[in-house]
């Protein structure tokens, strides 16, 4: 028996009127979703600017640029840029936009709920995320500057303070605190997502009728719930090593910049790696799973065909989520682990190829014989599939300890994870944005500018990351400030120049997107109808943009699966989920 206690104020779920309650400390999941997206948009441009500076240096290492003191970048500056680029992109963009941004906005609507289960907690998650972003950004402005230990922040150098480098002082401390705050925010968000999906689904919305987007947000939230607590524990241990003199991660007998460390002993840097990657590998799926959901959703909608093998897709999503917790050791093949452990981690890692292949096969099956519309949303969804395959295949190389021994910490790895986790996930977000923009803002993004944006970005990212595979195969290590003094790497310099030029063009293309975003927001073609794409899920049954309580107090009832396109015998080529069976027009 479903019970609502105390009357629950039914019928009094009214929109707040003041600016602060409406747009700043809002408890409306749609506003919070947009807030998350804005935070991610700001962060992605910060992260991109940092990468632009790195590419400037890598392309022309000896050129003088007036933006640097004395004309040249210092090694520490390079490492700080690299660390903050990785951190901001992974946490503030790839973790927030696909899940907290789009998920917040559309999960409740797609399951027929008026809001998240706990709106105040939802608001708190966002503002906690904002605090963590501010704390991390503050690392740029303290003495010594931003940390230089990479986004993985491996001890012992991350645990020893300023003696390990300028950014390893206050900057690193802020980095760890910022990350710990982020863990808290993500845990609150994950708890809210899962509860909402389990308990707030509207009548008829069985698990078998959930849109695949909701499935991916659901599984992603489970991953977040189980992984961020572990990262939080690791952050606390690392922080104690830094400020309280403990030795969890710091071994004895270290010599750092000519100084023998006598006040620490017995700790294990590998312990950090285990804790970090136990979180870190699921984190990869936290970034990519929502993109998979969006891609599946869009391929079906714009092919006018049901998702091929819906149940297999759900199984694959769950399988990827589960296996994500069993493979963290593949990040540590060269850490001296037992070959038997490495073998087990290797086999488990390659097993992820199975659900991944199921997904890819089913995406192609969905497209096969469909009436495909090549609009911007669809192009980005197709781009997602392409990048997922390109980035995923190199994962099978890296999953083998024998190969990883050579490729580890080289540009091959950089190419791999940027394609699969970075760019593919970003394409998923773009696909979602072009698709849902009319629902969110009542206007369409400009298709012409959008297509220019797509093609420049699509070709651009391949031009950036494909050559990096070859740098890696040639033995080019990653994270190095300067490799011009090494003979065999010097010969690879033209590749760096090519990559840098490609990167600048791709970054320029994102400015086109930014223009399109703001132009369309205020002057784009108006979307007057509820369902411009003739899609099936519940968000397309309400006005664009949706009212404060989504369904205006009238709860929808779901009668159909999420992807009933081109159903034989039906007059229209789509059947909305909420359409009563007797209202489905016969052909």
């Amino acid at each position: 028996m479903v019970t609502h206690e105390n009357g629950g104020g039914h019928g009094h779920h009214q929109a707040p009127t003041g600016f602060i309650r409406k747009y700043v400390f809002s408890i409306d999941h749609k506003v919070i979703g947009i807030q998350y997206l804005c935070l991610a948009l700001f962060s992605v441009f910060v992260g991109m600017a940092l990468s632009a500076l790195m590419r400037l240096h890598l392309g022309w290492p000896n050129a003088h640029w007036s933006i640097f003191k004395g004309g040249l970048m210092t090694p520490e500056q390079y490492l700080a840029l690299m660390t903050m680029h990785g951190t901001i992109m992974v946490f503030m963009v790839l973790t927030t936009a696909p899940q907290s941004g789009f998920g917040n906005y559309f999960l409740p609507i797609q399951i027929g709920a008026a809001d998240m289960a706990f709106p105040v907690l939802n608001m708190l998650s966002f503002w906690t995320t904002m605090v963590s972003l501010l704390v991390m950004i503050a690392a740029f402005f303290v003495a010594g500057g931003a940390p230089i230990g990479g986004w993985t922040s491996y001890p012992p150098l991350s645990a020893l303070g300023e003696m390990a480098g300028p950014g390893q002082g206050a900057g690193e401390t802020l980095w760890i605190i910022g990350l710990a705050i982020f863990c808290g925010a993500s845990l609150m968000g994950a708890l809210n997502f899962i509860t909402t999906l389990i308990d707030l689904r509207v009548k008829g919305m069985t698990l078998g009728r959930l849109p695949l987007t909701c499935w991916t947000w659901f599984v992603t939230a489970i991953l977040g719930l189980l992984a961020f607590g572990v990262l939080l524990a690791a952050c606390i241990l690392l922080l104690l090593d830094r400020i309280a003199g403990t030795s969890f991660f710091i071994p004895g007998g270290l010599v750092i910049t000519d100084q023998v460390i006598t006040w620490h002993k017995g700790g294990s840097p590998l312990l950090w790696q285990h804790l970090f990657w136990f979180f870190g590998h699921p984190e990869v799926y936290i970034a990519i799973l929502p993109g998979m959901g969006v891609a599946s959703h869009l391929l079906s909608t714009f092919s006018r065909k049901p998702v091929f093998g819906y149940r297999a897709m759900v199984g694959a999503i769950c399988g990827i989520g589960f296996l994500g917790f069993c493979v963290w050791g593949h990040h540590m093949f060269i850490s001296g682990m037992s070959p038997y452990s490495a073998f087990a981690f290797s086999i488990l890692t390659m097993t992820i190829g199975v659900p991944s292949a199921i997904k890819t096969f089913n995406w192609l099956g969905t497209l096969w014989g469909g009436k495909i519309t090549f609009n911007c949303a669809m192009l980005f969804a197709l781009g997602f599939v392409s990048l997922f395959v390109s980035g995923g295949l190199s994962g099978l190389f890296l999953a083998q300890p024998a190969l990883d021994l050579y490729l580890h910490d080289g540009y091959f790895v950089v190419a791999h994870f940027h394609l699969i986790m970075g760019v593919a996930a970003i394409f998923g977000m773009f696909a979602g944005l072009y698709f849902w923009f009319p629902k969110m803002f009542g206007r369409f993004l400009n298709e012409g500018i959008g297509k220019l944006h797509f093609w420049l970005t699509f070709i651009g990212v391949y031009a950036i990351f494909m050559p990096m595979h070859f740098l890696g195969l040639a033995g080019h290590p990653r994270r190095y400030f300067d490799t011009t003094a090494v003979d065999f790497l010097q010969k690879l310099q033209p590749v760096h120049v090519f990559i840098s030029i490609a990167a600048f063009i791709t970054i320029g293309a994102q400015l086109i997107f930014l223009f399109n975003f703001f132009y369309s927001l205020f002057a784009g073609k108006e979307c007057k109808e509820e369902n411009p794409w003739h899609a099936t899920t519940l968000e397309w049954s309400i006005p664009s943009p949706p009212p404060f309580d989504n369904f205006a107090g009238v709860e929808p009832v779901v009668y159909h699966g999420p992807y009933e396109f081109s159903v034989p015998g039906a007059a229209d080529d789509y059947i909305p989920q909420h359409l009563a069976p007797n209202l489905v027009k016969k052909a």
Partner: protein
Amino acid sequence: MAGTVAEDLEIIDAGRGGGTGTPAGGDDDSGSSGPLHPVPKRAYFTALQLGLAAIVMFFMALASSYIVRRGLGLDWQRTPLPPVLWFNTVVLLTSSVTIVVARKKLEGGEREAFRSWWWVTTGLGLLFLAGQIIAWRQLAAAGMLLSTNPSSSFFYLLTAAHGAHLAGGIFSLFYVTFRNWKRSRISQATAAELTSIYWHFMDGLWIFLLVLLTLGR
């Protein structure tokens, strides 16, 4: 009873999300829950279970670090457990009994008795925390500080982490006492039930940590 895993699964399977029934009571007192929409009571239990799962992961990470670090360290020295911990344990276990009594009184409609027993629980919770601080002071007086040895580091860390979570429980106990439940989405009885589940869990977690610290020191 709402909130069991079995019931959740049943609900998941049947696809009966929230909002399928009209809110009970129909109390039209305007603004009774402010701008918040009604949610089914079981959502609170789901959320609590999820929260506990996250807490389990957090403490498992610390516990496995403890086991790994102990296995590595030639520098691991025995940290004597302050005897006051046994007293604290009894206090905490007793508080789990008193919270059950309090809830029984509330179910039986004896609000005054409920309030008294609830206050007893809150007091025992505070006493436990005070006892933990005494344990720290005793340990510090014996020369075992946070950074003295990995064994003592973990002792302070694990007890502090548990104490912080227990403090959340005490906050919740106060919240049940002082909240104006007429303006809430759930009743005081539900809040008391949620708090007691969390409280029992903190109790069990402490026993686990105590066993770990006793065997591992």
